[in-house]
């Protein structure tokens, strides 16, 4: 072995690299894993499901294998009026986020409350189900498996819902379309409070994958964009052609996410639209062409739902 005269060097190299990895991976790993989930982390997990990047169940990143977030104002089982409630519907076969399937994600107290009060242990991916995020008397957030605790079935909840948000599929679009190359999801701790809102806390990310903070901000931070601008019309125009609502924007157009047909089933002709738009942009016509309303199953709808849901 011609390395023999370098034995000490090789050992030292191994020791140095191991020590480095002990301090930079093992120790932070223990520390971060010990942080308890916040309410936001529970909501994010139930909104985005198991995985939003490439995975076996959605290899082409089409927004499959995702839960549906709904807004309820009446009890789906009894029909009685109730306070506005967000519920997360996992159709049968949808994969659960790690927090529901692994004991070490939610944090000790949150896990205990979710198991005893929320009965999440009874949920199974094969059967699907409906989940709620609740906060108990001593301020511990927990997940409630409403199919067990209240008898809410997925079908009844989808039928009773006032609104449905495909925000889970929208996060997949956010990743696939590279929105995060310019829009961060991380208001900075030092100076972003006024403009972009509250920076995230340590426990806000438990169970989320990927986190897509973004690093290179070329556009506004979006973590709380739904609180600043909740207009679906504005978002629709902005995604179709950002320069309709913000003439100086350098954002690309996402009109191709509309697909072939709009909400009413009319064919969308992007080239004809662009021709009319260019006439408007060059001052030959007074008004820009109408932006089609995205179809309910379009990718554009998912992405708009995701952005409006960033509160």
């Amino acid at each position, binding site marked *: 072995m011609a390395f023999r005269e370098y034995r000490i060097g090789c050992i030292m190299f191994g020791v140095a690299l191991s020590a480095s990895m002990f301090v930079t991976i093992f120790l932070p790993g223990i520390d971060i894993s010990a942080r308890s989930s916040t309410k936001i982390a529970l909501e994010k997990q139930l909104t985005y499901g198991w995985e939003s990047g490439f995975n076996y169940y959605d290899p082409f990143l089409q927004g499959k294998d995702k839960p549906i977030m709904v807004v309820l104002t009446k009890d789906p089982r009894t029909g009685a009026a109730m306070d506005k409630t967000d519920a997360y519907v996992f159709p049968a076969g949808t994969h659960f986020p790690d927090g529901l399937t692994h004991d070490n994600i939610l944090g000790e107290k949150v896990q205990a409350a979710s198991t005893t009060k929320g009965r999440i242990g009874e949920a199974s991916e094969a059967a699907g189900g409906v989940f709620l995020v609740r906060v108990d008397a001593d301020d511990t957030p927990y997940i409630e498996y409403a199919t067990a605790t209240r008898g809410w079935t997925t079908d009844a909840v989808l039928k009773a819902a006032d609104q449905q948000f495909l925000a889970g599929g929208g996060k997949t679009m956010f990743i696939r379309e590279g929105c995060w190359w310019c829009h961060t999801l991380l208001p900075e701790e030092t100076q972003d409070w006024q403009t972009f809102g509250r920076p995230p806390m340590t426990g806000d*990310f438990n169970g989320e994958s990927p986190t897509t903070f973004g690093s290179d901000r070329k556009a506004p931070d979006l973590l709380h964009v739904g609180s600043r601008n909740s207009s679906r019309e504005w978002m629709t125009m902005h995604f179709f052609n950002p320069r309709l609502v913000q003439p*100086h924007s350098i954002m*690309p157009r996402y009109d191709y996410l509309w697909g072939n047909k709009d909400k009413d089933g009319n064919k969308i002709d992007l080239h004809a639209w662009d021709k009319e738009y260019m006439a408007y942009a060059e001052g030959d016509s007074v008004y820009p062409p109408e932006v089609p309303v995205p179809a309910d199953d379009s990718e554009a709808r998912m992405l708009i739902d995701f952005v409006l849901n960033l509160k």
Partner: protein
Amino acid sequence: MLKYLFAKEDDIPQGTTALFFAVSSIAWFIIGTGLGSFNAAKLAFPDWYHGLYALQFGHMRQVHVHAVIFGWIAMAFAASMMYITPALGNTKLWSEKLGVWNCLLYNIGLCLALALLWTGITSGREYSDHIWPIDLYIAFVMVVPWSLNVWMTIVNRRTQGIYTSNWFFAGCMFMTIIVFLVGNLPEWFHLTGLNEAYMTWWFAHNILGLLITPVAAAITYYIVPKITGNPLYSHRVGHLHFWSIVVFYSTPAAHHLMSSPLPEWLKSFASVEGVLILVPAVAYVCNILLTMQGKWSLFVSNIEIKFTITGVLLAIPLNMQGGFQQTRAINWYIHGTGWIVAHAHLALLGFSTFAEAAAVYYGMQVLLRRKLYSASLANFHFWMLLIGFSLYWTSMTIAGLIQGAAKIYEVPYVDVVIAEHPYMIVRWLGGTMVFFGNIIWLYNMVMTARAGVVIPAGRQPVEIAYTR
């Protein structure tokens, strides 16, 4: 080229692998910088074409990054190692056949990886964007055979000691494999949350710190003594450089996430370690510049030294920025702005590209046994690269400072976009100059292979006069 795939080991001329890697690296450099120029144009003029949805910025940005990192930079490293490692061991490459296959499968894998990224099939993790099957391919089909060739060539060397460059080559290839396998833990085991975010940047930091920066430095440790004829100024300072890379450069990963809610102790630790990166940096720059003693005229007259020393000089602002911009006092101002983009290009397009371009220029002349075709074209390439890069770096640094100021004074974001517009145009022009310079380079190298003056056995390229 393909005829060597099934040839016997002894029938493959020495240096074939290095040559294939070198030509591939230049081709990928053109592709990578072309994509970069195209992306930059879209940041300046978002509506300058319509309807080519395959060319969306969000789909192409990462293709540019990975084409230059895995195509240009890594393949130029492979080319350099494949001829420098045997030369320093006074031996042959361990297996030319493995190397030729390695190069072919590397190119195929990279095409596939970039095509997948282009269609949006991604892990959603910056710098580790590739999906895990591609990660496995990169680790075991692209990097392991390459490493094996380097390690085995060093093991089978015919010299007693191991020269500085070869410590770096062997060590960095080992660390790269570790970084690849460990840095993708979130994908292997579906790690989530802050662990995922932190491991993403652990990977990004270490792939830069343990592969790109030290290997580029190791290349200059070979090129400068070889061409000037001076011995390396200090073997011991080289030791300091090597060990401080292993100890200090592998630890500050968390400084990329200074404004995120990571544990405070981790950010403080990373920040201190980040300043200590100046130890290898200063050791390295001093060592190389002192090696130049008495031979500074070559900085003007010799194209390889011109490239190498420019790279080394660019390492000075690079490390000064790198050491201090990650401290809390400075990071809060420039985090996430164009300043960082400028810094990343200073590392990859400034320091390491100039070092590698020299190694590819030199290596191709030695391997082809032909003198470089045209000194004028090489000088043209140099100035296109240097001026293009300088325009890019200056404009992005200014744009970053504007962004930083707007961030703390809470200026509406669209005003930042308006203010940055002229700098986006300059950035695009700079990137385009680099792109065109590289096309000239490829032409020059093709002509060298065809019409360069033949270098007699036992002679160095530097000893032969240019004919054009």
